[in-house]
């Protein structure tokens, strides 16, 4: 055992010695490790430390004792978990419905269904909650205007779950679509050839092969739901407390940092657990041998009647999504939602581009700065993790992926705790928002970067070095261009997330630097749905335009690339 340790140590020292021959590489590694510690671990550590203080700042377990004695906070935990599980199951089911219908049947309008299922991702993550209130609230279009019901109870579990399923099922959809596409339909054809009935083939072949994907989608949805902040802030109310909102209220409402921190820790535990299960158990069970684009898609798996039932269900969900967006669009132009809806006006947009414009500008600047940095950083980290051997490599891999698992609320609290005191005072600045976005939104870039690099023969980079390129030149000229598809998908993700972020950002905005999402939230809270909707419309428009530009750069600017490279 000690021999083993000695050996390990020896290897690390050897690796270090080799690195010292390449100062730039060494410097890059050290800088990245240091910033991961500073901007991911240190804030979490601060949350943990603070949760063990009493009101006077002394060591104490009081915040946690309070947690166990407070009926309210205990029910917040129960509600959060309940919602998490329910949304994970329902969201994955809807995601599977869409993924299966689109990949395994021959129904019409697949393209449209696909687009509709993805739209919620590029919107503020609480658009569902807004729409519910606008449709079913006190002055709701459907509840009051059409049906005359004044006090339909939409606040609480069901309303919230509806909003969250709407917000998060696209994540499950994308995951499961990828999984289903990678299962060669010939497997199903073969099973059917052997005499299996359709239902049996589905149950014995398709479902088992998809199962790891489903489990993974559920865990991701569970994590997302737990950390969701926007929907519950609007819909939970005081009778249905959830952890993320309670933590926020403790901090911004009561200025009780230890209790807020303690709630954050409680929130962190199930998220991290789910993350570990996802990363170290479920992802291992993924069937790697079944990757590869299908040659021809099997559409025999589903009988005609079943196919139309699935189609009907998809249309139903798509209809709801369209209704939500139509509502937002209408509200953006209606004079006063709920009272004077037929007079159309541009005044909400005038507001957005007038008084509200600083938030638009701030959001664009922050997203514009943090996105490319996150994109490049993601590629560099992916490269280091896959191609280099150095002490701290696994630590880098793990830490950079951690922000998948840490709820935004927790990281937001961590940032205000960590960066409102020396050595680094950042609260109220541009930097705190940008840094938060950069380090929270690198994982997707890293993941796709790693996936691509694993497919690139290392000797391609060695060939460059062999011809005389140093490490930097080879990365810039060979590796990075090969990673471009990953780079752009990382960019897109980081940009969309930066534009739609709320849960951490709401702690970090200030008078100088504000964000559109926070503005929208504020408008909703004060009942000004017109302005909130106009903001949302502008936000979605910006994201769509940005995505179009990125796609344009990718297809026009890099037309020299082979199509197959871009599809990875």
């Amino acid at each position, binding site marked *: 055992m000690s*021999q083993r340790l000695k050996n390990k140590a020896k290897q690390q020292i050897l690796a270090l010695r080799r690195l010292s021959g390449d100062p730039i590489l060494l410097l890059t590694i050290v800088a990245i490790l240091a910033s991961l510690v500073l901007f991911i671990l240190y804030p979490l550590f601060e949350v943990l430390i603070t949760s063990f203080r009493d009101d006077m700042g002394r060591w104490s377990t009081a915040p946690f004792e309070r947690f166990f004695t407070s009926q309210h906070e205990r029910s917040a935990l129960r509600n959060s978990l309940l919602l998490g599980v329910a949304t994970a199951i329902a969201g994955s089911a809807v995601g599977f419905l869409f993924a299966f219908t689109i990949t395994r049947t021959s129904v019409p309008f697949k393209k449209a269904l696909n687009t509709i299922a993805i739209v919620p991702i590029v919107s503020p993550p609480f658009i569902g909650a807004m729409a519910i209130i606008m449709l079913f609230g006190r002055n709701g279009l459907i509840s009051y205007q059409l049906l005359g019901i004044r006090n339909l109870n939409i606040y609480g579990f069901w309303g919230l779950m509806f909003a969250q399923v709407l917000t998060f099922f696209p994540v499950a959809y994308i995951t499961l679509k990828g999984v289903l596409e990678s299962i060669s339909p010939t497997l199903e054809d073969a099973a059917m050839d052997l005499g299996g009935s359709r239902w049996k083939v589905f149950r014995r072949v398709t479902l088992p092969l998809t199962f790891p994907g489903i489990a993974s989608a559920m865990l991701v949805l569970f994590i997302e739901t737990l950390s969701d902040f926007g929907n519950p802030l609007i819909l939970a109310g005081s009778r249905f407390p959830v952890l993320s909102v309670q933590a926020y209220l403790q901090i911004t409402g009561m200025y009780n940092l230890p209790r807020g921190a303690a709630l954050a820790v409680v929130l962190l535990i199930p998220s991290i657990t789910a993350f570990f299960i996802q990363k170290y158990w479920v992802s291992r069970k993924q069937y790697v041998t079944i990757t590869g684009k299908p040659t021809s898609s099997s559409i025999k798996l589903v009988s005609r009647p079943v196919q139309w039932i699935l189609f009907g269900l998809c249309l139903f969900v798509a209809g709801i999504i369209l209704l939500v967006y139509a509502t937002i669009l209408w509200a953006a132009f209606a004079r006063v939602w709920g009272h004077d809806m037929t007079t159309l006006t541009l005044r909400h947009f005038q507001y957005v581009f007038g008084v509200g414009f600083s938030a638009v500008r701030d959001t664009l600047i922050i997203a514009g700065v943090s996105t490319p940095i996150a994109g490049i950083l993601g590629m560099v980290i992916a490269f280091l993790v896959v191609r280099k051997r150095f002490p701290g490599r696994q630590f880098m891999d793990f830490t950079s992926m951690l922000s998948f698992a840490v709820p935004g609320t927790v990281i937001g609290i961590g940032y205000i705790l960590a960066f409102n005191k020396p050595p680094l005072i950042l609260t109220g600045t541009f930097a705190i928002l940008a840094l938060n976005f950069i380090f929270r939104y690198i994982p997707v870039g890293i993941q796709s970067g790693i996936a691509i690099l694993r497919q690139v023969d290392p*000797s391609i980079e*060695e*060939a*460059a*070095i*062999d011809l005389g390129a140093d490490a930097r030149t080879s990365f810039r*000229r060979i590796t990075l261009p090969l990673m471009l598809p990953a780079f752009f998908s990382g960019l897109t993700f980081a940009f969309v997330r930066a534009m739609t972020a709320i849960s951490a950002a709401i702690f970090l905005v200030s008078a100088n630097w504000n964000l559109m999402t926070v503005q929208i939230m504020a408008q909703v809270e004060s009942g000004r749905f017109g302005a909130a909707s106009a903001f949302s419309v502008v936000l979605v428009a910006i994201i769509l335009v940005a995505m179009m530009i990125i796609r344009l750069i990718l297809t026009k600017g890099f037309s*020299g690339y*082979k199509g197959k490279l871009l599809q990875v």
Partner: protein
Amino acid sequence: MSVRLEAIHKYFSDPDQPDNRVTAVEDMTLEIQEGEMVTFLGPSGCGKTTTLRIVSGFEAPNSGTVWIGGKEVSHLPPNKRDTSMVFQSYAIFPHLSVGQNIGFGPELRGMNKKQIKDAVMEVMEVMNLTDLYHRSPDQLSGGQQQRVALARAVINRPKVLLFDEPLSNLDAKLREQMRLEIRRIQKTFGITSIYVTHDQSEAMTVSDRIVVMDKGRVMQVGTPFEIYSRPANYFVADFIGRVNFIPCTVVGATDGALNVQYQGGIGDAGSAEGSFSAGDSALTVVRPESLRLAKTEAGGPKGLLSGVVEKQVYIGATVEYEIVVPGVETPIQAVTFNPVEEGFIETGSSVEIDFGMKAAHLIPVQ
């Protein structure tokens, strides 16, 4: 430039089990002359690639030194060594055109556009690649990709060219054509080359000298003729081509040949590995094509060995025999030529086996 490897040792340890060291190269000392083409030949996992990567600088040896052109380069990273590698997978940059691929090296050296283009054109000319300048790599055939990889490697006029099984992805016919091509290019540019392969005929045809390796150790270094006809030990004899090992006893020596007692009589061995004195047991290495066969006739002459044909296979140009000889463990393999005129020996017949002095090579019993 000459290449010298001195007392190279290289171990790998499994990251999961650092206690289990894998020996990749053990105590390798080797000198390669300027302009020479040397082949590393050996079974899979014997350390050929590793040695090549040590020369190019991608692996650092645990001990020992590497010299190129009389200068020690052990401490230099691969981009500072004047070596060029042709990779088994070609490693062509997929996002660059053929011309850009080949011009990558000159570009790194800071040549201007015109110079780069001229240099690329010149090399492409030599390689018969002229029309492919703007092609993208995935529109090339296997042989063309191979040529592009080679062109990219030689354009910088490296001091040493390294080939790691460059032809293993090509079909048999193209392989034969390309190995002649490689040899031609290597001679044209006069670049010292190390060539890794586990295809014997490839090694025999392209190399000035062959280094036979096994389990990280050098088993023999010699010209293709030496390796084939005077193997240094059992491993080399067995690894290269088909071979017979015949147990025998040394009885004496006359005029530069050893007199050896076989089952059927005394014969001469023209060469030997190591020294033998009368009474020593030894193995005679003799190739199937060196054996002469004759049907046993009552009262007729006896061969050095006598046996019974167990198997006879007609190939066309040749006939292959397996002959059971008492006292020799595995059946003796023999090949005869020109079956049309010389005829066959039927299975089950008794035969007399003879071979000449030059064909018999003695090695110690292992």
